[in-house]
């Protein structure tokens, strides 16, 4: 063993950095080990970001870590433009909309306000450890009780409404309230993005509420791009770690989590170097952490089976198009830096795209989320419903075919784009898997669905961050509350480790 630390964090993704900063600021000697050459994981690669829109870091975490407030506070909330093939595009910012008939806009605003209140009630649990199944501690029950109280405070009608819709599908909800169209398309995209669910899949209301539970200085459900972009966020987090005395090493892939007497003893790097620490927090996906880095021999068979069966097949491909000038919308205006363009003209289009993916094929017309990075002259596109387990595999030909179909879809919304493209790159879910230790290539390390949330995240028996081998914690997106760029799993995992350390 070459060195000894109080805690090792595997993976310098944003959750890992949050966890490392938390521990370092509590006086722990912390080492962060990152396999790749950059920090920030999926949002840190300046050349090709898996997560180009990192706008949901919890304000509580920013405050707790003493991060610069302007990181999240001063930027404008992100606008979403939903492309409409049959008329003017619809622009959405929270409850405000442009391009809708006044009565539809009013109906939507009412719906948005109601969902926002319900999401806020659910959001109470985001920074709480999930309660245990069977034997919950008083602290855990307090978190649950607070959520129950918040739900009760919604009033009888809204609580009843929440319980009615929470497990249902976003298709029915939106059809009932606002009808299909570009607005419903944009909301349904938010409900399904990253996951293997279409608008008609049960549980998609829950994922929509989950997304709306995000919090920024501009209010609940509103998201902001940090000033300075993703790099500024990553730098602020890594500076926080090093300022508190933590060390960060890049290009040091971990090969094995070492175990001694059923307790975590440290890690062995691929280089063969062994580093001792009684505490290891893994920001890598649960499957990779447990099956590959730890090894099934340290785990019970049922636990391994539940881990293997965890739904974590990624559905999103990332495409970057280098373009000579800002893309122009059909209306003549240009897509602004930081704006989000949805090309999902309705829920029907999303469900149709999902149909192909269900059976292992690429949709003819993928539904897209795009954003323009003015600094890099790049259009960053997330193509939804491109399955990890694609029939025939992810060959270069398939990627070229996907690139062409994405460009064809983009061309409708951004006429003339094709001719402006100077270079393009495709990252399939398989590339995300191999590049970022996310088994299945899933953005959120595991589906956000009702049987994989709260006390069931990442799977039954593995919630609450601590793993069966003492001293090992999950601190990545696979853990509660999972997904997105919230930092909450890293925050909660570090607090759990600190609390256990006191005992």
């Amino acid at each position, binding site marked *: 063993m070459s060195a000894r630390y109080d805690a090792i964090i595997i993976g310098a993704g944003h959750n890992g950095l949050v966890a490392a900063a938390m521990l370092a600021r509590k006086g722990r000697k912390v080492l962060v080990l990152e396999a790749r050459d950059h920090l920030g994981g999926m949002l840190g690669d300046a050349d090709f970001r898996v997560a180009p829109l990192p706008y949901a870091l919890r304000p509580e975490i920013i405050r707790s870590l003493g991060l610069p407030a302007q990181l999240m506070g001063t930027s404008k909330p992100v606008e979403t433009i939903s492309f409409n093939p049959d008329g003017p595009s619809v622009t959405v910012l929270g409850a405000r909309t442009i391009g809708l008939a006044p009565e539809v806009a009013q109906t939507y605003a009412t719906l948005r306000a109601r969902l926002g209140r319900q999401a806020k009630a659910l959001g109470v649990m985001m920074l709480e450890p999930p309660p245990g199944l069977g034997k919950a501690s008083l602290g855990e029950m307090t978190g649950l009780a607070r959520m129950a109280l918040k739900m009760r405070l919604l009033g009888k009608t809204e609580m009843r409404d929440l319980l009615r819709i929470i497990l249902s599908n976003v298709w029915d909800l939106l059809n009932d309230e606002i009808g299909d169209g570009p607005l419903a398309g944009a909301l349904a995209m938010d409900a399904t993005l990253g996951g293997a669910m279409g608008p008609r899949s049960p549980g998609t209301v829950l994922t929509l509420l989950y997304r709306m539970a995000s919090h920024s200085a501009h209010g609940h459900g509103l998201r902001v791009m940090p000033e300075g972009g993703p790099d500024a966020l990553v730098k602020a987090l890594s500076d926080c770690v090093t300022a508190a005395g933590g060390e960060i090493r890049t290009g040091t892939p971990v090969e094995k989590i070492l175990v001694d007497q059923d307790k975590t003893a440290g890690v062995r790097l691929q280089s063969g170097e062994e580093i001792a620490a009684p505490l290891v927090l893994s920001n890598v996906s649960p499957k990779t952490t447990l099956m590959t880095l730890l090894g099934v*021999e340290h785990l019970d068979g049922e636990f391994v089976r539940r881990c293997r069966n965890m739904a974590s097949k990624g559905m999103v491909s990332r495409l970057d198009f280098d373009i000579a000038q800002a893309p122009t919308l059909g209306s003549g205006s240009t897509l602004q830096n930081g704006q989000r363009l949805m090309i999902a003209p309705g829920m029907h289009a999303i469900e149709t795209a999902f149909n192909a993916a269900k059976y292992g094929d690429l949709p003819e017309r993928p539904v897209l989320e795009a954003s323009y990075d003015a600094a890099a002259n790049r259009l960053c596109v997330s193509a939804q419903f491109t399955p990890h387990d694609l029939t025939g595999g992810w060959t270069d030909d398939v990627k070229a075919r996907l690139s062409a179909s994405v460009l064809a879809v983009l061309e409708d919304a951004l006429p003339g784009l094709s001719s402006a493209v100077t270079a393009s790159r495709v990252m399939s879910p398989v590339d995300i898997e191999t590049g970022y230790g996310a088994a299945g290539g899933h953005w959120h390390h595991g589906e956000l669905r009702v049987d994989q949330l709260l006390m069931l995240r990442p799977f039954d028996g593995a919630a609450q961050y601590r793993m069966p081998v003492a001293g090992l914690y999950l601190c990545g997106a696979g853990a509660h509350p999972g997904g997105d760029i919230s930092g909450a799993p890293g925050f909660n995992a570090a607090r759990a480790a600190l609390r256990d350390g006191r005992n």
Partner: protein
Amino acid sequence: MTATAEPVAQVVSGLKSGPFHDRLVAHNRQQAWMNWMGYASPSVLDSVEFEYFAIRNQSTLFDISPMCKYAITGPDAEAVLNRLVTRDIRKLKPGRVAYCIWLDEDGQVVDDGTVFRLSETEFRLCCQEPQLSWLEDIAWGFDVSISDVTRDIAGLALQGPTSCALLKDLGLAGIETLKTFGIAEFAIGGADVTISRTGFTGDLGYELWIAPADALTIWDALMGAGKLRGLRVIGYEALDMARIEAGFLLPKVDFLSAQTVLRPDRANTPYELGLEWLVTLDKPHFNGRRALLDLSGQTPPRKLVAIEIERDKPAHNALVYHKKSREVGMVTSALWSPTCKRNIAYAWLDAPYGQSVTTDLWVEIYLQKEIRWQRRMARCHPASRPFFSHPRRTATPPADY
């Protein structure tokens, strides 16, 4: 008029004929067949008393082909077995057998069985309940191959005081040097047979493992040699008497597999079953170890206790009371033991009865005399297992008797 007593070939509805079926049919005067893993298996062939006393005084043949058998082979086979069972399999040498239990992650017993170590990398697991999917779960991620060889291997239990002499009569050189829980290769009538000194009777005995094609050849050779050794074919009922005396528990009778219970509190830990001697906590991780660590310091909420009952009426399905009034448990297996001359049983007793409180316990026995039921309260006392154990079981070489 002439009377004929030719045995009629039996077709047992829905049940498979095992490798020894033709011979079993010829011996089965009672035609009392039972279903054992889909095979037609005799519960009694002639009379239980004759069969039972043959186990204790002569030798007996029992078809154990229906028992589930799994081949576990490969570089990680030892690691897989060691993760499966609670004993330290690393200490089991090639050519040896170990009685084992295995648990789920809550420390509840899934099943018991015998692990045969055939070589460094080859194991065979024999057990009562089908285990393939469980084994596949346990072995996932290891370099090992698992196959169900239940139908590929015929098995015969040759048990009783004269069993070694019988095998010697067949010319099996060196069989007398085979130690308890040892395995050796032999040939009988030109057919290969693997013999282990194992059994379910608590007495001297062997289990013979045969290719199904050779089954009848070996059966005939054994029956031929057994004429002067008092060899008798037996069914399940006689064996059940012997196993109660010998202290062996039976799944589905004395306890339920954790995988078959509908109510979670019906599964049992090794501590409840009195099988803590099979648990090695200081070995590498095995399934259920962490749960057992938590449980190891606690008093089991109930325990399966061997009891001896006063008077002579067997206490089948009896309830157990403290001070004749408070119901504290129930009997699972019971027997008037003809060999021990004791009235014995296993009973589930709620804590602290049978653990710290061992006096003033009573079983309530119902007995019928000419369609009149009577209720008898008989005093019982916790006893140690096994009730029957004979030095010849482990003597090497065994005497001829």
